């Protein structure tokens, strides 16, 4: 594995290797000394063109636990905001000896472009409405550790699938790992041809699902006529207490964060024992350590 650009690029063996490695990384997390010397002398650049403190911190923690040098390059207040092109930035990072670049970018495909301009590894930390592969990996890791398996799991992905890079990555990865995904949301927010089962009625899928993954719905979508009002959205597609109680006893509720409490998810659900939201954050660091190790831990 040279880059991690898209969850769709991962075959089942590689994805499983990441999850297994993440499990080992997680087992090291409880130790007195959390730092490992593995990536000593390696430089990881966090190149963030969008504010995303949680994702950046997660990658930063992962890289630092593996002893890599971390350089945070945020687009705000840098040469990037002065109009430097991504290519020129790439050449700068190249000259600085970056072994890996973790990129978050509002344009779909920006990590693919970057990978053609730098010699080091490129990790996609979210690109536009395309993909967010480490989020999908940490979600799969969370499902596996809660439910013991991925193959055959029934996963309902609920909400604004159209604009969600998390959904795209999850659909691709879960299919590879043998889970059965159903997309649920208003027809306006379900993209065409994602080659996955689609249902417009949340209530009809709840009783037969192992995982409900709630996606963040941006309130601005309302202004673009994707749905009429917040209230109507919450009524039709929000996960509240009564809906949660329709789920099978073992089923879990996931959310990639940040949540709109009261919109797509009721506080009662977010704070319930079924919710894996806090675990997802912790697992994020282990999964990102695994990915960094697998990309940088060997001969380059």
């Amino acid at each position, binding site marked *: *594995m040279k880059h991690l650009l898209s969850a769709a690029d991962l075959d089942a063996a590689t994805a499983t*290797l990441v999850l*297994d*490695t993440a499990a*080992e*990384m997680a*087992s*090291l997390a409880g*130790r*007195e*000394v959390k*730092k*490992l*010397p*593995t990536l000593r002398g390696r430089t990881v650049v966090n190149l963030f063109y969008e504010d995303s403190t949680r994702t950046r911190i997660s990658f930063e923690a992962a890289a630092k636990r*593996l002893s890599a040098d971390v350089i945070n390059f945020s687009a705000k207040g840098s040469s990037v905001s002065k109009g430097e092109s991504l290519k020129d930035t790439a050449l700068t990072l190249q000259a600085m000896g970056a072994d890996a670049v973790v990129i978050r970018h509002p344009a779909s495909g920006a990590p693919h472009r970057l990978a053609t301009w730098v010699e080091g590894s490129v990790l996609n930390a979210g690109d536009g409405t395309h993909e967010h592969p480490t989020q999908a990996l940490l979600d799969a890791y969370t499902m596996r550790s809660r439910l013991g398996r991925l193959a055959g799991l029934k996963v309902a992905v609920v909400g604004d699938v159209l604009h969600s890079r998390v959904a795209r990555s999850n659909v691709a990865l879960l299919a590879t790992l043998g889970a059965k995904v159903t997309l649920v949301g208003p027809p306006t927010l379900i993209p065409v041809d994602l080659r996955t089962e689609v249902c417009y009625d949340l209530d009809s899928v709840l009783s037969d699902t192992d995982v409900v993954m709630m996606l963040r719905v941006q309130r601005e979508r309302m202004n673009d006529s994707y749905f009429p009002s917040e209230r109507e959205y919450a009524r039709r597609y929000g996960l509240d207490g009564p809906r949660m109680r329709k789920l099978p006893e073992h089923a879990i509720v996931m959310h990639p964060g940040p949540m709109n409490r009261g919109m797509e998810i009721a506080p009662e659900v977010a704070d319930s024992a079924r919710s894996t939201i806090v675990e997802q954050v912790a697992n994020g660091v282990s999964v990102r350590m695994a990915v960094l*190790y*697998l*990309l940088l*831990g*060997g*001969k*380059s």
Partner: protein
Amino acid sequence: MALPEAAQSQPKTILTSTDLQRVVDRIAHQILEKTQGAADTALMGIPTRGGPLARRLADRIRTFEGVDVPVGVLDITLYRDDLRRQATRAIGPTEVPPGGVDGRRVILVDDVLFSGRTVRAALDALSDIGRPRSVQLAVLVDRGHRELPIRADYVGKNIPTALAESVRVALVETDGVDEVKLFGGTQ
């Protein structure tokens, strides 16, 4: 490039199954002797074959003296100094022995002692788990060619080798058979 048949020597068996059991017994006895009955002692095997060896030693110690020595596994992949020289390696599990390592005598167990780099990595890995009172090293085979100032406290068998040769330890638990063989390089 294939070498001419004559240049490749047949592998030589160094320890048979019976020899290997005898050697393990002897190391177990030596541990008991040197540690005053294995008090405050834990064994940690270095994967792959150090793990089963550590469990065998614990088993023999229990048989000989009725003492239960805690056993753990110490994966050193993330501490290796040669990561960049090879393709990425899969990480193995690390199991801290019951009761931990702090204040104890920890005996690292491995199959072959060669350059000493594995042991160096194991010492680093161990120090991230806790602070043992002392650390010792037990190996089935010492084949020489040290690159670091490291020596074993318990050695099953010293085998003088050439650099081009390789020593392969097989164990029932991992390989289905107990034996140690020396594979020849070129003459």
